[in-house]
């Protein structure tokens, strides 16, 4: 099995039996600037969201792969809000290159300019002091 785009790291062998569960582990990784996807060490399937076992093979030996960040918009909507309530914003579903789907917001263009099939880039940014996962239409640093 070839591990395309996999960045092996100390994170790779995180086991479920350790002191924190995979959900908390994933969130802590975001705090340190990494978006991690669970990868089964037995059947090599990626899964998101993180779980205590692999839903493909039921294996419990689960490691992590850091997302490369590239994804394609699978569907998109503009949530309408009055200007004084913050204005309209985008909500979309993105298929990441690693084969998993997640919800997100494309934040660098007008919400209605986001389209299905668009290539977007996952970033972890600090917004109002909090780490937040966002998508951008151009690959900025």
């Amino acid at each position, binding site marked *: 099995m070839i591990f395309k785009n996999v960045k092996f790291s100390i994170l790779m062998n995180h086991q479920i039996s350790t002191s924190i569960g995979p959900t908390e582990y994933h969130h802590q990784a975001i705090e340190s600037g990494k978006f991690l996807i669970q990868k089964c060490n037995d059947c090599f399937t990626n899964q998101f969201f993180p779980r205590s076992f692999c839903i493909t093979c039921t294996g419990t030996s689960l490691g992590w792969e850091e997302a490369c960040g590239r994804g394609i918009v699978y569907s998109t909507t503009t949530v309408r809000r009055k200007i004084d309530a913050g204005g309209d914003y985008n*909500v979309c579903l993105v298929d990441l290159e690693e084969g998993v789907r997640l919800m997100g917001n494309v934040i660098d263009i007008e919400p209605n300019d986001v389209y299905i099939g668009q290539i977007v880039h996952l970033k972890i940014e600090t917004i109002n002091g909090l780490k937040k996962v966002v998508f951008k239409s151009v690959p900025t640093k």
Partner: protein
Amino acid sequence: MNHIETRGKVAIVGIGTAGCGEAPGMSELELLGLATKAALEDAGLEIKDIDGLCTANLNIAMWPLNVTEYLGIRPTFVEGTNIGGSSFIAHQKPAMLALLSGQCSAVLVCYGSNQRTSKFGRKERSLARNSLDPSIFEDPYRPFDPPSSYALIAARHMHEYGTTRKHLAEVALAARKWAQLNPEAFCREPLDLETILSARMISDPFTIYDCCQVTDGAGAYIMTLSEKAKDLKKKPIFILSNETAVWHRSVTNMKDLTVTPSKDSGQRAFRAAKINHKEIDVVQVYDAFTINTILALEDLGFCKKGEGGEFVDDGAIAPGGRLPVNTNGGGLSCVHPNMYGAFATIEAVRQLRGECSDRQIVNAKTALINGNGGTSASSQSTSILCTEEIL
């Protein structure tokens, strides 16, 4: 595979509604109690005859206890499964099996909500629910749910199959035209395509008219074995089949946004009922949003995948169209007190009894009902009902 034959063995013998639309000052249990009383009178049964209870509530975990106590009953069969608004259709098969096994002899399925006029309002309840049951991988991105999740589904359907906003609007318009023939419907004022298409957007591609109503209301119905049903007050309506499918919770985890669990529940329901689509006289599907009706017609097999938009075009599911769908006006125009499943069932029974006056489908002998649950077509339950001559 069914090891126990249930086809036509159980009937719906009584139906009742209460407070549909606005019922200011009434509690959920008070509304549920009135609907139950109406269903008992309709059936010619007493509350002491009820020994089976199916019920669920959006906010309350042990709701069957609240209802048992309120109604003053001691049921020997309780079904409190909550898979969203489809629950009150999905309750049918467990109830059928309980009746056939002798666990109980009369099952009450009941629901009540005061979400529109309650002083502890929608916003507070929604915040409380989100706090108790967060969607941790979606909440940070602020989908305005349920509309945004169904909007994502609609956008994908439009992208893949060329479904248009006009197609969606046709669903809303058909629902309104049926509602105008139904004195119980909450929204009966005239509506046209232009108004729907130019209305305020909620979550693209949905305007306010693509979204169901927010009403109060209670619905109840009673099931017994068919052999007992024949001795009761009203013409019994028989359950040929009920099948349920549950696939996911969040829209992010819905594998293909254009295919819903009805694909599975519908196929099983038709097989168990031993009838085909052409034999269905009237259809009641849970139209939480306009896209739901299109998806249901496709996944249930009334048209091919992707052709639902064209299927509903030009008033095809409105009064006088090719297939009568949601003859009460549906969740879009009749009643939608959070969870709608019981009301789809009640309208199907009314049609098959011939009680629908202006909106009556002449000589209706079979009805399909399809429930939808969760914020992204998460669970669906399909039943096929009929009159005695079809058995």
